[in-house]
């Protein structure tokens, strides 16, 4: 503990409540941090690749999650260590930015830390290590750019996209029907994609799950599926050519925000008030009718009387529809969200070719399908599955597949997977290292070794001899000067990833390397850890 003394030998207090804080400094701090980071990476290491294992996580409330999605594992893991938290952040930012490769990025960071530890032991200054890593990562990113391929697809030919999504899905629990799911994901993305601007708004894709049925029953609905039913059991279950009024005001008497009192002191007043009230309901329904609506979707609840009136006037209605869903419906049907009955006009109504209610299973679950919308840009992926866990996992997998498809539309460069890109980068960096003067050379070489850890983990998880396999693939790459050799995880028989059709997106891979390097640099630069002691 750092203590300073004044000229009389009395200690200065530098940190507040210094004695209650534990503190690590210098090399010790770095080593502790590194080992924490590695511990996190070690947990995820076995989940990497198509044969990766799952983790079972039990949340504080006792719910069970089974997943092999890196970001989800880390988020649910309840990590307390500061550096552990950094790693969690790392995978989260990869998730936000790219949506896939969340496991890979953490394993990569772990490997970099492991290599850094060795260098530190040799007495190389952490900053030099960090700088060396930075240089190496730049080389890697450039190299990736060089070995990347342009990847052609069009609206008509979605096959290449489907293949890519299948690669992503093959490492998840849903591999059984990866073909179907990949097709769904690609179709969904293409439906909402703006190919001109190369932009995809994933918000327009709604992923909805319902327990029951089989995974094969998962479907893509060109429209919106809302987990709600008609407000009155006797309303029609099927509406064709619906004109939809999308309301955010309740079917209830208005509640003015200004404080007021209505005093009733005579019988007449009592009666007029009553009539007024009835008129309110009548007017509301009338206004909807006048605008020509044949379906009302409302964010709020209905009063019983209003409900009956709606039923009575043959105006089907749906209540308690959430804000996000309401927006989606508005986008899909081309309608406007109307906050007041008075502002309801025919132009503001949304249009949909078919609205129907569908019931499931033996329980009385019903869902509302809004299909053939005027503006079919919003789609819904409706997942069915054996149980809640399965559905959650499928949701996560679909999300990853969607992200991959989106990234390809944004930037259609790809690199080949199966560790081939990492091996190729590793070779390139190794070669570059020798030309580099100065201590950084060691760090650059260490970076190359760290890159090898990804194919190592892949082959380990696939039950292959890791070192043998890696050495073989590496020599093959150099001999034939072909960066497409990777680890044959699925035992297909060839390790040319181009033939196996295993791709990853270029930006995804680049992002992985850059993010991992940044975090490792940050961790290396920490030389002092001050934590408040436990109470």
């Amino acid at each position, binding site marked *: 503990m750092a203590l300073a003394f004044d000229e009389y030998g009395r200690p200065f207090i530098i940190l507040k409540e210094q004695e209650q804080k534990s503190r690590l400094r210098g090399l010790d701090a770095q080593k502790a941090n590194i080992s924490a980071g590695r511990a996190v990476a070690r947990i995820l290491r076995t989940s990497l690749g198509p044969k990766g294992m799952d983790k079972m996580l039990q949340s*504080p409330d006792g719910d069970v999650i089974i997943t092999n999605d890196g970001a989800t594992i880390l988020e649910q893991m*309840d990590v307390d260590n500061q550096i552990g938290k950094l790693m969690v952040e790392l995978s989260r930012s990869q998730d936000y930015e790219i949506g896939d490769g969340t496991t890979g990025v953490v394993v990569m960071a772990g490997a970099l830390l492991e290599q850094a530890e060795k260098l530190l032991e040799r007495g190389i200054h952490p900053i030099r290590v960090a700088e060396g890593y930075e240089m190496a990562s730049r080389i890697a990113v450039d190299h990736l750019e060089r070995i990347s391929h342009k990847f052609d697809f069009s609206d008509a030919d979605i096959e290449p996209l489907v293949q890519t999504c299948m690669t992503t899905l093959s490492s998840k629990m849903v591999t059984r029907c990866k073909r179907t799911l990949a097709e769904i994901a690609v179709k969904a993305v293409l439906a909402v994609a703006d190919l001109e601007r190369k932009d995809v708004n994933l918000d327009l894709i709604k992923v909805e799950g319902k327990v029951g049925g089989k995974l094969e029953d998962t479907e893509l609905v060109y429209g919106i599926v809302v987990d709600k039913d008609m407000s009155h059991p006797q309303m029609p279950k099927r509406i064709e050519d619906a004109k939809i009024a999308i309301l955010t005001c309740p079917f209830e008497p208005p509640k003015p925000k200004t404080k007021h009192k209505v005093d009733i002191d005579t019988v007449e007043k009592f009666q007029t008030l009553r009539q007024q009230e009835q008129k309110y309901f009548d007017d509301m329904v009338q206004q909807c009718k006048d605008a020509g609506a044949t379906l009302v979707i409302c964010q709020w609840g209905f009063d019983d009387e209003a409900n009956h009136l709606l039923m009575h006037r043959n105006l089907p209605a749906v209540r308690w529809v959430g804000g996000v869903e309401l927006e989606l419906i508005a986008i899909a049907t081309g309608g406007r969200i109307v906050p007041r009955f008075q502002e309801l006009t025919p132009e503001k109504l949304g249009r949909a070719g078919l609205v129907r209610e569908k019931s499931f299973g033996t329980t009385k679950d019903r869902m509302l399908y809004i299909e053939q919308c005027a503006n079919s840009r919003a789609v819904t992926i409706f997942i069915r599955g054996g149980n809640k866990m399965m559905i959650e996992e499928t949701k996560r997998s679909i999300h990853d597949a969607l992200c991959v498809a989106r990234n390809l539309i944004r930037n259609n460069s790809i690199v080949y997977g199966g560790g081939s890109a990492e091996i190729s980068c590793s070779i390139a960096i190794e070669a570059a290292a020798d030309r580099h003067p100065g201590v950084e050379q060691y760090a650059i070489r260490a970076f190359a070794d760290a890159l090898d850890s990804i194919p190592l983990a892949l082959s380990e998880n696939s039950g292959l001899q890791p070192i043998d396999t890696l050495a073989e693939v590496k020599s093959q790459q150099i001999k034939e000067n072909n960066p497409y050799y990777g680890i044959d995880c699925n035992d297909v028989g060839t390790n040319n990833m181009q033939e196996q059709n295993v791709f990853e997106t270029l930006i995804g891979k680049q992002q992985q390397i850059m993010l991992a390097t940044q975090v490792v640099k940050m961790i290396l630069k920490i030389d002092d850890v001050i934590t408040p002691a436990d109470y």
Partner: protein
Amino acid sequence: MAVERLFKDEATEEKGERARMASYVGAMAIADLVKTTLGPKGMDKILQSTGRGHNVTVTNDGATILKSLHIDNPAAKVLVDISKVQDDEVGDGTTSVVVLAGELLREAEKLTMAKIHPMTIIAGFRMAAECAQKALLQKAMDNKQDPEKFKSDLMKIAMTTLSSKILSQDKEYFAQLAVDAVMRLKGSTNLESIQIIKKAGGSLRDSFLDEGFILDKKIGIGQPKRIENAKILVANTAMDTDKVKIYGARVRVDSMARVAQIEGAEKEKMKEKVQKIIAHGINCFVNRQLIYNYPEELFADAGILAIEHADFDGIERLALVTGGDIASTFDNPESVKLGHCKLIEEIMIGEDRLIHFSGVEMGQACTIVLRGASSHMLDEAERSLHDALCVLSQTVNDSRVLLGGGWPEMVMAKEVDELARRTPGKRSHAIEAFSRALQSIPTIIADNAGLDSAELISQLRAEHHKERTNAGIDVISGGVGDMEKLGISESFKVKQAVLLSATEAAEMILRVDEIITCAPRRREDRM
């Protein structure tokens, strides 16, 4: 250097072999728990709730047992979950699915002991499940075209389902009941229109199917007890004092006289409302909400039967049955659709008086009145009947039928065994294991019946080696019997769901190599 604290306090982490062991053990424990309830001679369980009153439930319904358990093991939770889903989706086979998943894991455990990688096991299981499903598809019979045969199929399925339940004594009777009820639905799976009323007293045999609708309510005093050609208005409206819904309204008076006036106005208002209702030309009024004494009196005066406080389900069902609207405003009587029925009368079941609506417009709905010695008995009977109804309604939609008594398992096991012989590589071990797990279902059925399972299963296997056999376990005579002759059938859909969800669950648990348990959320002490 080990990191001391990566996780929060109390969070635990189990890795690799240990994690796998923990989930195997948990899952198998759950499977063993419900194992003894499988089959026609399965035993029941007593469940005592921890809640107030320590209610006791006696059941052999897998889903019910598992639902009431407090489980800490995450793998066990997966199994509980699949049985719940099975219950929701097809209604029956809740025990089988858990037992099959448990057996699959038991086999998988042996394989992992023999150093076979879980991924290889999963690959084998998947191939086996696919092959088994194909075998089932080939053997399934479809009698949709022939209504007579189809009905007898339904009858057999109902009897098979019920034979493992408390109703097995009178299974023929109840099977008929269930088939009749489901046939009335005409293909819809909406079981809501079948109402089950439980009344203690009498014996199970006294249960009956009523073609009308029975509402568990009393008729108001002084009102007619019997109405022919009833016109019914079903409503959901406040019949106490109509509150003013406009926000901020309040009554402010300065003298007693005024209070009286307003009260008078209120009364007047009520009267007006009642008049409006009467103006619909009805002779029966059913409201979801309370009816105060004053309006009730008015109704009685008009000779109208008023029923208050019918619960929400009751109201919806009544509206469905009688074909009326649920009304909340009464200003335009011409546009409100009234419900009709031939006869409303008060009937007595046991000691309770109920209102019986017969001759209703919609033929779909019906009521099953269950009678039985005790409430536990009735609860269990209801669950059993619910299972049977679910299975039947599913079968009506998907009319493929299989034989029962372990026949489908043996058929699948045979096909899967053959697949194993054809498959090169380590996967064949897993496929073989799958077949063993399938065979364990008839084994358990035989064991539960106190039969010599080893002997029986080997006989059964020999039988199944011949082409086209109908052999299964005949629990009653204790030997191998012809299932077609014995009339034991099962729904294809149930069997398929059992197979698929059990494999899915086993796969899910097998893939896990690490369990991380978060620290339990601290609850505020509210003592």
